[in-house]
């Protein structure tokens, strides 16, 4: 009857048991000095080894088929692992792209040989992926991509440039979109093909691009006659557009899409103490209510995915609301914290944390699908387009 559905999904007990296990693991990692949850900007000392230990726990590709080394566990269990990693500021970057996005794409569309080769290594935490979508002249309009793949003996030669490719400079593989023929009049999305690109292939150069937040994981990746073997084509030649929707549902549904600046709320609650003034108390209550609601929506989407549905609109709504919320959060926290009377060192610590969140905020509604694109998807789901 309603245009939009969100059930009151509750995580089952075994998920909450798993949560305890993940927390215990992360606490031991923190105790061992692998990373500092309060200083995520510093990064981990040894993220590679952390990846392998997470892999050993069975927490990478945990929903994937057993025949590739996966555990065939539920999306809800994966959800819990993702949440706890995010909240602890664990250094997940080495495996998270593959876990969230690249692995599921390969499972659906890659050659069997590739799956058998690559998936077990992802699961062990040994492989690091990046995503080659955006180009200098195609941002949110992925189908305007012009980097080309042309046929050659036994494979393809790729040429062109990808930008804003996170972590390309340290990734083992990229899954990238390349033009294999022109778009057609009937279908402007025709003509693009998805490829698995070994980043050690000769002819690939990465140039890091600094960000205003001080982070340096953006890259410009230039391809000059880089050779990709035939079996590295993912899915249908010229038909990558058919694969786009289901891929993005994964990307949009996770808790990482509204918890990005959670630390700001944590820092405020911490600084406020047990009995802050009514302004701060009301402000914290309201932010918690909003966050709780976003999480309930996000868990609900995870439940739909688990039930085999494709909640495209619901996932877009969670991401739209979630990213707008997490973008505003540091600003709301700043206002509420304004009249707190902190000691100098408390204030320095709080300010450092808040400044970082304020600096990353602008990109939260841009990366992985802008607000404009998401609202277009929601509008289509409402029957307006």
């Amino acid at each position: 009857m309603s245009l939009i559905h969100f059930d009151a999904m509750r995580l089952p007990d075994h998920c909450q048991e798993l949560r305890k296990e993940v927390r215990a693991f992360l606490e031991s990692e923190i105790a061992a000095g692998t990373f500092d949850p309060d200083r995520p900007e510093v990064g981990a000392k040894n993220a590679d080894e952390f990846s392998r230990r997470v892999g050993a726990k069975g927490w990478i590709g945990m929903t994937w088929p057993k025949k590739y080394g996966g555990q065939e566990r539920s999306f809800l269990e994966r959800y819990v692992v993702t949440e706890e990693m995010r909240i602890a500021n664990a250094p997940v970057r080495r495996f998270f792209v593959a876990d969230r996005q690249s692995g599921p794409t390969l499972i659906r569309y890659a050659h069997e040989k590739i799956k058998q080769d690559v998936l077990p290594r992802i699961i062990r935490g040994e492989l690091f992926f990046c995503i080659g979508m955006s180009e200098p002249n195609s941002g949110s309009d992925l189908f305007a991509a012009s980097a080309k793949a042309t046929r050659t003996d036994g494979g393809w030669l790729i040429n062109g440039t990808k930008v804003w490719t996170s972590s390309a400079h340290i990734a083992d593989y990229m899954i990238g979109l390349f033009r294999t023929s022109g778009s057609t009049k009937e279908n402007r999305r025709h003509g693009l093909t998805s490829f698995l690109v070994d980043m050690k292939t000769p002819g690939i150069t990465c140039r890091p691009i600094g960000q205003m937040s001080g982070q340096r994981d953006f890259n410009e990746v230039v391809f000059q006659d880089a050779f990709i073997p035939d079996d590295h084509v993912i899915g249908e030649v010229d038909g990558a557009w058919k694969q786009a929707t289901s891929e993005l549902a994964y990307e949009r549904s996770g808790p990482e899409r509204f918890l990005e600046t959670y630390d700001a709320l944590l820092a405020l609650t911490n600084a406020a103490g047990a009995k802050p003034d009514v302004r701060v108390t009301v402000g914290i209550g309201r932010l918690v209510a909003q966050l709780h609601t976003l999480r309930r929506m996000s868990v609900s989407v995870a439940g739909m995915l688990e039930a085999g549905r494709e909640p495209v609109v619901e996932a877009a709504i969670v991401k739209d609301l979630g990213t707008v919320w997490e973008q505003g959060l540091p600003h709301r926290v700043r206002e509420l914290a304004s009249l707190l009377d902190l000691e100098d060192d408390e204030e320095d610590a709080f300010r450092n944390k808040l400044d970082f969140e304020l600096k990353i905020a602008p990109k939260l509604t841009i990366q992985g699908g802008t607000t404009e694109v998401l609202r277009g998807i929601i509008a289509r789901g409402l029957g307006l387009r």
Partner: protein
Amino acid sequence: MSASETLVVETAARVLADLADPQTIVQKRDDAWKAPLWSSLQEIGLDLAWASETAGGAGASLGDGFGIIREAGRAALGVPLAETLLAGWLLDRAGLTAPGGPMTVAPVRPKDHLTLDKTGRVNGQARMVPFASDVEHLVVLATGDEGPSVALVRTADCKLKPGKSLASDARDTVEFANVLPVHRARLKESGGREKDVLLLMGAAVRAQQIAGALDRILELSVHYSQQRVAFEKPISKFQAIQHSLARLGGEVAAAASAAASAADTIANTSFDDDAALLEVAAAKIRCSEAVEVGTGIAHQVHGAIGFTDEHILHRFTLRLLSWRDEFGDETFWSLKLGELITARGARELWPLLASR
């Protein structure tokens, strides 16, 4: 939701569509629809869904009841169906029997308190009591030396000062001066939040009504945008309208999720659990927040016609504005929730959220 729950809710939806269609109500401009509707609700037992069967009710599940209430919201219903369910629920929690007919509850504002004296009489004042002047019985939560009790009171035994909600539904001041209840009994539950059960349950009920009404104004707005032509095309084709309706969709989704989660929590968790306070507070806050943005967009899309009393939109808008104030507004619940969170401490925030 199980299949049988769905059946009850579907029945409610059908009865409301047949007998309380907003378009018909707006056209007729009289109250003639109310009596047949109520007879029908009563006949099926929807009005006392939450009173147990031994107490004269239908003994439906909490989930079913919230489903009925959501449908009442979707109809912008201006009769005390939600209040009667709530009254039946409260009677049931003290083992009392429902008298039949529409009822309401008091107090509904956090700052109003009623007392029960040693002789069992109710005293105090409750303001903004919904539909008090339309019902024969009030179910009140009153505090005596032994703690909170539930009392069934005849409206005729109280002094009423009539008032109106934004939607012109009765919201009356009820004065209790040594009122002897028809029945009374101690609340069955114990624990620190027993005195707040009515406020918590009422907030969850209003959240559900808000979610239902918002859902409906999304439908209305989408439909209108597809019919209305401006600058030579349906306004649904303008990107600005599409994005506004997408935002409205987001608010509807947030309200529906928050309300459903709170309802589910009440069905499965004690009110004394911190999780219950989190869930109910969050639902009332988030649903109430959605009202300003949601009604704003609906009116913007409808233009002038939505502002007339000939169009049904205002029935939704004005009740939404009224419901967000009742059983604690978002500021009240934010204060309560903020106190809970700060008292527990920052490191306990995530575990609480993650426990749900």
